[in-house]
Structure formats: structure tokens, C-alpha cells
């Protein structure tokens, strides 16, 4: 008979409660009619008035649209760069500067956001000056600078994911293809890429959420005109709790939860199929 009431299991349950209690309370209070948020107005609740208000809030909608575009472009660029870096680190063996590249790709994972933000902004300011002097061209900080900053810190995550995925395969398949005369680029697209596709997909999603979520770095590098959704939320939240933020949070949490669960199920199925194919290939030998 297995014991379930062990110390670790109890802590696990408490820990999960700790992780989910704030989210659930936020969801519940998003249906509260009272403007005072934490005072439950039992007579008029639940209500969807904050959700309705949200869809008429122009700044929120604009910021959300900007954030979606920034996150999608960031994730795509980060996946391309991160996959290249992961491939180089996992497959190219030792080359001059490899340790430096490895350091460069892991440092952004732990770098405090204020440092990343400040250094990126100072780079953009210097580039602005340089371009003004050299070409007489004045560029404005905005969406492009946010994307560049986001790509730089999210590609590190993609690199680590791709690199560790590649490390779980040996390169015998790629080697066999090379032996059979396939060109390296063909080997990459026909063999390596399909193998690391799950890693690339989860890297894309992770880069998307990190970019979608970022407030500190964006605050530094965004120009005066561009406001991403987290920046807008942050400026509202600094003034205290706000019922429309609760509604917005609920929508975001539900969308993410659905997305994560769906992608996990899809990935599980793909993984199972791959395993079955491997088994069939093994038994066919």
C-alpha cells in the first residue's frame, strides 16, 4: 500500500495552492460589480461589465495589438537566431570562440532586466547619434527597437532549448545522410530540422510569451509613442487594484492556459507517433 499522506505530497499540494490562489482570486474578482475590487458587491455580482468596458477601451486594444505584433515578430526572429546558435553549439564541435558564444547565449537568461534595458537603450541612443552624424537620418525608438531588444534576450532561451534537444540525439542520422552525399543544407532541412521541430515550437511559444509579458526592457527602449500592453497594465497597476485589469488578466490567463494545454497534448501525440515509428524501424531491421 502506497502512502499518499507524506510530507512532500502535503507540501506539493500547499505549493500548488500557493501558485494558483492569486490567479483564482483575480478571476473571481473580475466578475465583481464593485469598483472597490476587493469588496464583494453581492447584490449585483457576478457581472461582465468590466469585460464589456475592456472592449471599448481604445488604448488597451491598441496596446494589445502592438504587443501581439511585437511578440510574433520577436518569436520568429528569436527562433531563427536561437536555432542557428543552438545548432552551432551542439553540432559544430569545438571552434575558436565557442566558449564565448556559449557564455553570450546563457548570460541573458539570468541578466537582471534593468541592466538589459538600460544597456539596450544606451546602444540605441548611440546609434541614433551615429546615424545622424553619418547619414543625417533620424530614427525614432519604437516598435523596431522593442523587437530588437526582445529578440536579444529571448533567443537565449531558444538556444538552450534547441541545444539540449540536439544533445539528446547523436548525429548518426546526419552523418549517414552526409555519407550518402546529401549537401549540409539539405541534411539540415530534411533531417535535423524535423528532429528538433518540437524544440523549435516550444522555443517560439516561450519567446512569444516572454516578449508579450515584458515590461521592464520595453519601458527602457520604447519611444514616447509606443505603449505595449504590459507597459499600459503596469502604469494602471502602480495606482492600485483596478477591476478592468482583473478582467484583462482573466482573458489572458485563460487564453494562455488553453494554448499551453493544447500544445502539450499535440506535442505528446507527435512524440508518441515518433516513438512508434522508431519502434517499427527498429523491429523492421
Amino acid at each position, binding site marked *: 500500500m502506497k502512502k499518499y499522506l507524506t510530507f*512532500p*505530497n*502535503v*507540501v*506539493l499540494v500547499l*505549493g500548488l495552492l500557493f*501558485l494558483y490562489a*492569486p*490567479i483564482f482570486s*483575480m478571476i473571481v474578482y473580475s466578475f465583481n460589480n464593485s469598483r472597490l475590487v476587493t469588496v464583494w458587491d453581492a447584490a449585483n455580482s457576478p457581472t461582465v461589465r468590466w469585460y464589456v468596458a475592456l472592449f471599448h477601451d481604445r488604448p488597451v486594444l491598441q496596446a494589445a495589438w502592438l504587443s501581439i505584433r511585437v511578440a510574433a515578430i520577436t518569436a520568429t526572429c528569436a527562433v531563427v*537566431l536561437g536555432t542557428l546558435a543552438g*545548432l*552551432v553549439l551542439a*553540432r*559544430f564541435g*569545438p571552434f*575558436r*570562440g565557442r566558449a564565448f*558564444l*556559449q557564455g*553570450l*547565449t*546563457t*548570460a*541573458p537568461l*539570468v*541578466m*537582471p*532586466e*534593468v*541592466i538589459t534595458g*538600460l*544597456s*539596450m537603450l*544606451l*546602444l540605441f541612443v*548611440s546609434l541614433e547619434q551615429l546615424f545622424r552624424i553619418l547619414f543625417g537620418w533620424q530614427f525614432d525608438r519604437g516598435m523596431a527597437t522593442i523587437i530588437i531588444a526582445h529578440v*536579444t534576450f529571448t*533567443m537565449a532561451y531558444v538556444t*538552450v532549448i534547441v541545444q539540449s534537444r540536439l*544533445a*539528446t540525439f547523436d*548525429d548518426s542520422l546526419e*552523418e549517414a545522410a*552526409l*555519407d550518402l552525399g546529401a549537401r*549540409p543544407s539539405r541534411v539540415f532541412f530534411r533531417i535535423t530540422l524535423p528532429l528538433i521541430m518540437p524544440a523549435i515550437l516550444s522555443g517560439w511559444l516561450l519567446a512569444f510569451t516572454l516578449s508579450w509579458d515584458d515590461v*521592464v526592457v520595453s519601458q*527602457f527602449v520604447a519611444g514616447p509613442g509606443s505603449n505595449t500592453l504590459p507597459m499600459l*497594465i*503596469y502604469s494602471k*497597476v502602480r495606482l*492600485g*487594484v483596478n477591476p478592468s*485589469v*482583473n478582467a*484583462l488578466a482573466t482573458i489572458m*490567463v485563460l487564453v*494562455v492556459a488553453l494554448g499551453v494545454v493544447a500544445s*502539450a497534448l499535440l506535442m505528446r501525440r507527435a512524440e508518441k507517433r515518433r516513438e512508434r515509428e522508431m519502434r517499427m524501424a527498429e523491429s523492421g531491421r
Partner: protein
Amino acid sequence: MATRAELASGLRGGRAGPLWDLLLRFGPPRWSQYIRQYWAGQRLVIAVPYLWLLLFFVVPFLIVLKISFAEFAPLGRPPFEPILRWVEEGGLQVKLLFSAYDYLLHEPLYVSAWLYSIKVAAMSTLLCLLLAYPMAYAIARASPSMRNVLLMLIILPFWTSFLLRVYAWIGLLKTDGVINQVLMAMGIIHEPLAMMNTSFAVYVGIVYSYLPFMIFPLYTNLEKHDPTLLEAAKDLGCGPVRAFFRITLPLSKDGIYAGSLLVFIPAVGEYVIPTLLGRTDTLMIASLLSDEFFRNRDWPRASAVAIALLLLLLIPIMLFQRIQNRELRANRR
């Protein structure tokens, strides 16, 4: 005669050496063409991420370093004096100031911010470890299907907005917030507890936000442990508590290091959590950096804070990278 595979792996190793020269010179023409293409392609593949990181990660640090030595010019655009300047007598003048660094080592406001940041980060790391270790242990011992569900439950909040999750705590911790209301309704307390804008709230926020970062390295470590070790200890008459301290804990030390560094490093420079939940009288270092930059427009001092923070974190970051590399190498085996 080298096989094609050996050749390919030698090339991929980037140490082609004499064999490569030989083949280029005397090999069949198609081969040398293939090798040249391979080389060119490989260089390009290395160059793209390298250049990106150099331009957008290394160069920015050099700029921050440079500005940290500049003189503050409150009315300038940008607000600092150039370090290098041609003087009229026809020479290059270099002006490096250490005043910004001097200030942040001696000004009491800064000294207390440094100490407070380190204290908060260390305490949160410890609390995180104490909570995460049993959780990771329980997950590692669960049945495989249960394990996947539990991991999913741990990672799910991590995918939702960090900002919003921190914000959610305001609603819980406020004087008229959920926790106080529940405790008062249950009759445990009669006066609401002051939890918002305290160090306690910062600890809660950091532990809450970084918990998955602690659980995952611990879990990947604990999952690999051989259960027969504990059985052997039991057979030899070792109690479960003693077996834990003698076997499991020492074996999981890499997971503990990795998790602790993953929490400690970002926590020292944490900005959002202390700003939203924390005290208004004692600031953490990241808030000071942000204030210097946005409020006082003192770019040199903000840069100096960034460099000092980086120096403080350099050793933990390097430790983390070493563990990370060891992990990657171990996976390859």
C-alpha cells in the same frame, strides 16, 4: 584513408588541419568543392548569431561602461560630457571620472539598497528552496502519468503574465484584501494585518514568481536518482530521515546550486516585484537604477549602478554557466 564520416566530423570540429589541406590540394575536384562549400556555409551559420549577440549584447555593455565614467551634464542631450575630446591645442583629452562609483559605494541610501537587495534575494532563495525541494521530490516520486500533469500544473502559471501574477498579490495582501478578510471572518485576527508594502510582501512575490525556476532543476536532478540506493540504505537499517540527509540531499547538490542561482541572480536585480509590493522607504538596487535614469536623468550614475550590479552578479553568473555546461555535457553522454 579517412572515411567520409571521419572527414565530415573532423571538419565539423573545425580542426581540419593537414588532412584537409591534403584533400584540398590532391583530392578529386568535387570533394574540394564540397569541402569549400561546407566551410563557407558553416562560417556563415556561426557568424549570424555571433554578430547579433556582439552588436546587441556586448557593445551595449561597453557603452554602459563608457558612460559610467562620464561626467554628468544635467542640461545636455544626452546628459553627459563626452569622455574623449579634441582640445584646441591639438591633443586628445581623456576624462574618466570615478565619482559615480565613489558615490554608490559611500552614499548611505545606496549602501542600504545594496545590503537590502542581497538580503532579500538570499532570503527568498532560501524560502524558495525550502518550499520547492519537497515539491520537486513529490513530483519525482509520482507515477509517470501523474508526473506529467503535475509538471504541467507547475509550469502553467509561468506561461501566464508575470506582471499580472504579481499584481494578483496586491488584491490578496491589501489591508482590505482577501487574506485579511478571510482571517477576520474566521476570527483568527481582529485587526487587519499590514502586509502590503513590507519586506514580507516582497518575499512572497519573489518566492511565488521564481518557484518554478527552483522546482525544475531540482526535479530533473531528483528524477535521475536510483531508487535502489534508498532501498539499500533501508535494508542496512538506515531510517528515512537519515537516508535523505546522507544520500538524497548530497546527490541533489547540483540541482540545488542551479535552482538557487536561477532564483538568486534575477532576484538581486528584481524591479517589478519590489516596486509593486515592496516598501517605499527601503529601495532595492534596481529601483534606484531606474530612478536615477528616468527621474534624475543621471545617466552616468545609472550606468555605474548597472556595472556594479553586474560585477556583484558576475561570480554567481559564471557559476551558473559552469553548472549549465556540465548539465549539457552530461545529457550528451
